[in-house]
């Protein structure tokens, strides 16, 4: 084979591998599903399982948050869909909110989910048009979750008077 052709192939292979390595280090995929999902999201062809998402939404509205998250996880296995991640974060928020306390661990998981949603959304802006929710944007939800996580104590009787943004 001609020298130029061999060298061009070598450069293309090395360049592609280097690009893939940079991508892996920046996206940090945990599973093969996440890797392939993130790759397809990068080129704009990622699709969630709509049936599983509908199931998750039904459980969410019935306040069955653990079941809702299982369904949402099944719908968005690669954690690349902003809307699904938003609902997952919201489910942690609702489950973690108590009348006189907040569950910081659940809030922290919610924060991680809303961060994923914001990272996956175009220009980091996520707005969910759902009349059943009091917060529609990722920024509002993140602020609420951060407030809960940063509170000095989980038990605070003063939260009795605080409005729960259901």
């Amino acid at each position, binding site marked *: 084979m001609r*020298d130029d052709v061999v060298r061009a192939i*070598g450069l293309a292979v090395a360049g592609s591998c280097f690009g893939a390595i940079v991508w892996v280090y920046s996206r940090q995929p945990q599973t093969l599903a996440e890797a392939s999902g993130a790759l397809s999201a990068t080129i704009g062809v990622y699709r969630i399982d709509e049936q599983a998402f509908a199931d998750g939404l039904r459980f969410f509205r019935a306040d069955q948050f653990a079941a809702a998250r299982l369904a949402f996880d099944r719908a968005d296995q690669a954690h690349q869909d902003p809307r699904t991640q938003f609902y997952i974060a919201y489910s942690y928020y609702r489950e973690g909110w108590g009348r006189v306390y907040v569950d910081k661990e659940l809030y922290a998981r919610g924060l991680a989910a809303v961060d994923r949603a914001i990272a996956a959304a175009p220009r980091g802006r996520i707005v969910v048009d759902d009349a059943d929710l009091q917060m529609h944007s990722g920024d509002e939800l993140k602020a609420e979750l951060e407030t809960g996580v940063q509170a000095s104590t989980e038990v605070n009787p003063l939260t009795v008077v605080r409005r729960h943004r259901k």
Partner: protein
Amino acid sequence: MSRAVEVFWLPLVFLAVTLLGGVRIADRLVFLRPPLSALVLAVLLLAALVRCGAFAPQRLMNPARSALQNLSGVTVLATMFAATVQAFNSVIPESGLPRLIIVVFLFVLLLNTLAASTDRTHVLRSTAVILGSMFVLKYIVLAALSDPTGGWLKRVLLAALEGVTLGTLAQEPFGLGTGYVAFLTLALFLGGLAILPRRDSGSRRALVDAGPGALREAQ
């Protein structure tokens, strides 16, 4: 050096090192980005390798070669630098006092290697010893100290390090697989260094071997 080695084997070996150097296996897979100190250490090692002739960049990039050939040379150089950074990334502890001590120790050791580098064999051997001992320190000694379940090595080390607060030494424990990945990474890296194009010192050595008479004749 054959064309296949230059165009495919060297870049792919070094890219494999670049990929694996930051892999840490815990409850999840982490691809750890290299610290800035790893870049500085990589520059020092690269300089030592060039100085001793273990790596001859002029054989990969020179005016007699075509643009594409020189680009292949640049690729080898770039991937080698990335692999060196990641090789250091794999042996430098992640946090705390051990990280500081080892970075300073490696810095001094590499400066010494750079200053004293005489021939290729010594520098390659020195590199293998440096990386090998850092591997043992991080993945066997520090890993044993950081092991929450304990073990005979931890008990021995605790007895030896009586009075030292473990909080300053302990690292975040990683899965057993991390050590195996690091070992493979370092083996690949040292293998890659061994097949790098070396400086051709044949003509100079022939003149030296022939003695001063030959030099006078030549003049």
